């Protein structure tokens, strides 16, 4: 017995037991400080038929929080259910509600993926916040039975030139890299976006993809009376206990632990070992049910496992290995210490389970077992401190129908479009605007960020940033693999959240198709302001509806995701930012279509029609600091057709390069495709101008959707155009790849050299953050 645990025993004589709770019904409890509403506290009392113990109060308060219970958002998820058809469900092996969704990618392979937010911790402590964001989503993927195979990080920051961005961005990027690199997971994409609205509230979202054989899917459930409940991985410490300190201060007056950080601290090495250990455990088939410990720690893991199972659970909390022996039971239940998992194991397989953990030097402790009762019972040195129906904690939390109201400012905002702004007309003016856009924070080269991530580890990366999607191989024999892209334009969502969410979906869908993959399913990370603001709640409802109905039209199901509310500074909410991750499948990822052209003589086609759609786009943002009007028109039928064209073209070898048109329009896409390998192009715009009834400026900078540029080998040109014509895909020959042209020659307008393009594109981030 160590001296520290002895001293803690001396200091904390009293533990609030179920017996105490029955005997002292009038005892005042700090439910307000724990964030519970009066009716919620009353409901707990009704469920239990007595006041909760302080440990039970801790569990309910954290599990009924917005973060864990989705109490404000849940009612809107009916849109997802209502819009998922049987046909969409066909490929869905596990849907919304589990740790992560799972889709069937063929040949017996299953892929799981999910995106989550870690916004608030990353603002407080950028490095650890971002690092543990990666750690958390990776454990979600692991707990489905999968080997994690890649990560991606959609990141949003305030103004590039604001001093606080200098604090937040380098820390976040180093944290994502520091954790992910050390885990040995390739980081294959994501986003880096700057907007003043994220100044006090950066968005740090993390996505992970994992793969397994179909029969290896594991679920978070505790079944089989007598099966052992095992906590394994890191010891439990006092990190991330935040609000529960109010309970701690109530239960012991003196000698309590010092104030602890509310942000968790990550140890990627411990997680790497845990991954390999889990995979060995799965291979040995010794795991019956498994759950990771993330938000709400043991409170969540025990109640969810028990709730999903068919019996009860008994846990001896004093058996939990501690990093800090002075921790009180309430704190142990709420601790968010990282790198921990919980497994349910048959007694006959216990020895093998423990031997595998020992081989990896992973500490594993039996802390309880599955019972034939219906309650989750937790004891502390023999005294019962929790005795609850687990479902009431994990799944039957409060559900709010929050008021929602279309914001009053929206009409004026939508009427304030870009039509009045002077547009460039001469070639020189167009060129100057292109270079200004290329150097702007959102369109500039992001390698200062992405070069800090290992994109090669595991040896299966077929494409990574800055290509349109990250692509990784799953099956080493056949080359079968997946493509993933995440996207969202919060500016569009601010102008129209329904359309904005669909535009995010459309862009991610298009990016996946652009590399040649067939889109299969989506995950979403819904970043919004306060749900108590009816305007924000209206944006949320609109966005969810937009995604759900958009998914139905595209035929891709939502597999799960995450809601992050309260992203605001004072009364000012961020732009609604529903980040969409789309996953697609390819038979052989070695055949993927990259974004840059290489081969002189290949013909450049623009697919899709261009309308005068500058509102909310990067040209208005960069040149005029303006946000107003209506976002580009959503054309999901157009996206679907375009997707089919791109997938077929890739399969049949009809295109060698393809690049999606989004922020900054055709001009920026041409520049990026040229810069990728330093091979130039000659381009002509007259035919498109005439066909679409627009001027050169609009062709170059409009952000109309459902468009890509492709490079087609001459030998395949007829087959390619025949396919477009037969299927009704709008297409125009707008140029040719030409290594004799230095940069891009837009005929009749301007020429811009590689050096000019490169200088504009690459200098921006190093100028702010150093080489």
């Amino acid at each position, binding site marked *: 017995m160590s001296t520290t645990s002895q001293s803690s025993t001396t200091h904390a004589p009293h533990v609030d037991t179920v017996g105490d709770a029955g005997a002292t019904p009038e005892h005042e409890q700090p439910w307000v400080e724990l964030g519970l509403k009066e009716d919620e506290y009353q409901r707990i009392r009704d469920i239990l038929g007595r006041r909760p113990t302080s440990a039970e109060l801790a569990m309910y308060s954290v599990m009924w929080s917005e973060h864990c219970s989705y109490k404000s958002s849940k009612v809107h998820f009916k849109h997802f259910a209502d819009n998922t058809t049987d046909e969409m469900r066909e490929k869905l092996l596990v849907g919304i509600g589990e740790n992560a969704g799972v889709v069937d990618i063929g040949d017996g392979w299953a892929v799981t993926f999910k995106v989550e937010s870690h916004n608030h911790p990353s603002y407080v402590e950028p490095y650890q916040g971002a690092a543990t964001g990666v750690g958390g989503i990776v454990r979600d993927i692991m707990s489905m039975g999968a080997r994690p195979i890649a990560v991606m990080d959609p990141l949003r920051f305030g103004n590039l030139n604001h001093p606080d961005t200098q604090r937040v961005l380098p820390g976040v990027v*180093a944290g994502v*890299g*520091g954790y992910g*690199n*050390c*885990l*040995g997971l390739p980081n294959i994409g994501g986003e880096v976006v700057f907007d003043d609205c994220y100044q006090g509230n950066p968005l740090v979202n993390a996505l992970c993809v994992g793969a397994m054989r179909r029969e290896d899917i594991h679920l978070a459930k505790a079944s089989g009376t007598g099966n052992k409940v095992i906590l394994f991985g890191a010891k439990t410490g006092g990190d991330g206990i935040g609000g529960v300190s109010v309970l701690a201060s109530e239960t012991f007056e003196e000698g309590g632990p010092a104030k602890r950080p509310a942000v968790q601290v990550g*140890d*990627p*090495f*411990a997680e*790497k*070992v845990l991954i*390999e250990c889990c995979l060995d455990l799965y291979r040995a088939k010794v795991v019956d049910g498994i759950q990771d410990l993330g938000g709400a720690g043991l409170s969540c893991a025990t109640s969810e496992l028990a709730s999903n199972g068919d019996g009860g659970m008994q846990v001896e909390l004093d058996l939990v290995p501690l990093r800090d022996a002075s921790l009180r039971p309430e704190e142990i239940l709420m601790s968010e210490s990282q790198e921990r998992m919980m497994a349910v194991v048959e007694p006959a397989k216990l020895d093998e389970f423990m031997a595998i953990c020992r*081989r*990896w*030097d992973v500490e594993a402790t039996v802390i309880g077992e599955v019972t034939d009762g219906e309650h989750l019972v937790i004891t502390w040195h023999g005294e019962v401190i929790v005795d609850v129906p687990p479902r009431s904690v994990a799944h039957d939390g409060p559900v709010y129908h929050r008021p929602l109201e279309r914001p009053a400012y929206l009409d004026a905002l939508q009427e304030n479009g870009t039509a009045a702004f002077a547009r460039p007309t001469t070639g020189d003016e167009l060129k100057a605007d292109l270079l200004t856009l290329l150097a702007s924070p959102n369109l500039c080269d992001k390698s200062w960020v*992405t*070069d*800090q*991530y*290992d*994109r*090669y*580890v*595991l*040896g*299966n*990366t*077929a494409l990574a940033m800055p290509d349109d999607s990250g692509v990784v*191989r799953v099956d*080493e024999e056949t*080359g079968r693999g997946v493509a993933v892209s995440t996207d969202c334009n919060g500016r569009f969502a601010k102008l129209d959240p329904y359309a904005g969410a669909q535009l995010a979906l459309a862009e991610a869908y298009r990016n996946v198709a652009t590399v040649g993959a067939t889109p299969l399913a989506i995950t979403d990370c819904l970043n919004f302001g306060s749900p108590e603001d009816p305007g924000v709640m209206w944006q949320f409802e609109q966005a969810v509806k937009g995604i759900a109905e958009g998914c139905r039209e595209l035929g891709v199901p939502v597999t799960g995701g995450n809601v992050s509310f309260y992203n605001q500074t004072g009364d000012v909410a961020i732009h609604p930012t529903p980040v969409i991750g789309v996953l697609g499948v390819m038979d052989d*990822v*070695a*055949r*993927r279509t990259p974004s840059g052209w290489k081969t002189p003589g290949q013909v450049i086609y623009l697919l899709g029609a261009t309308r005068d759609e500058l509102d909310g786009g990067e040209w208005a943002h960069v040149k005029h600091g303006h946000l107003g009007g209506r976002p580009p028109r959503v054309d999901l039928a157009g996206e679907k057709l375009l997707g089919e064209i791109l997938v077929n073209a890739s399969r049949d070898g009809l295109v060698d390069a393809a690049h999606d048109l989004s922020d900054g329009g055709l001009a920026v896409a041409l520049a990026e495709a040229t810069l990728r390998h330093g091979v130039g192009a000659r381009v002509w715009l007259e035919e498109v101008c005439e066909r679409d009834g627009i001027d050169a400026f609009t062709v170059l900078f409009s952000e109309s959707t459902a468009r890509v540029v492709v490079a087609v080998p001459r030998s395949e040109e007829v087959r390619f155009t025949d396919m477009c014509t037969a299927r009704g895909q709008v297409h125009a020959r707008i140029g040719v790849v030409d290594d004799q042209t230095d940069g891009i020659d837009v005929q009749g307008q301007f020429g811009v050299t590689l050096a000019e393009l490169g200088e504009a594109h690459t200098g921006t981030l190093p100028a702010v953050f*150093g*080489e």
Partner: protein
Amino acid sequence: MKVGVVTFPGSLDDRDAARAVRAVGGEPVSLWHGDADLRGVDAVILPGGFSYGDYLRCGAIARFAPVMDQLVPAARGGLPVLGICNGFQVLTESHLLPGALIRNDHRKFNCVDTRLRVENAQTAWTSDFEQGQEITVVLKNGEGGFVADERTLDELEGEGRVVFRYVVPEGGRNPNGSYRDIAGITNERGNVVGLMPHPEHCVETGYGPSLDGLPFFTSILKQVVSA
């Protein structure tokens, strides 16, 4: 031909190294850090990663792993050993190679496709290259700056033991602050080679920036077969 690939806790590129061995027709053999047993292999690769979390100092703890008790004397006796990235760090910590690897001079992790010049095409791991050949290989590290005292550096240069150098454009600088642009070195016998870049990520069409990693593995295959 059997090539051992050591897995320490925290090794990351062990599967990639095994794949590269298979790609040239060799048989990869997994070696466990805790077993003092080389399982009769003909050569050994110490792969990239963060062995034991690289806590304390990169490679400093791995050096004391039981498998190293067998590997160090075997390497001194002529067993071909290739240390990639973290493996290179383990080799310097084990004193099989001189010098040390320190934090990149720009203080960031850096993942780039880098140009290397082959300065010594006579080692066990580089005989399939041409002397002076330039290759493109993945580089990814946070602590890849090769340092040594002047005398050691002069000795390495004088004895032709600099195996790879970063190709640095006029007026530019190498990717991690390595002294004299050194990317890889060898021991006196030429059987132990360590380098920061990752040849195992450059062995398959469609994955990685080139196929310039293959000669590392064909070199060792020929060496072992002819030995």
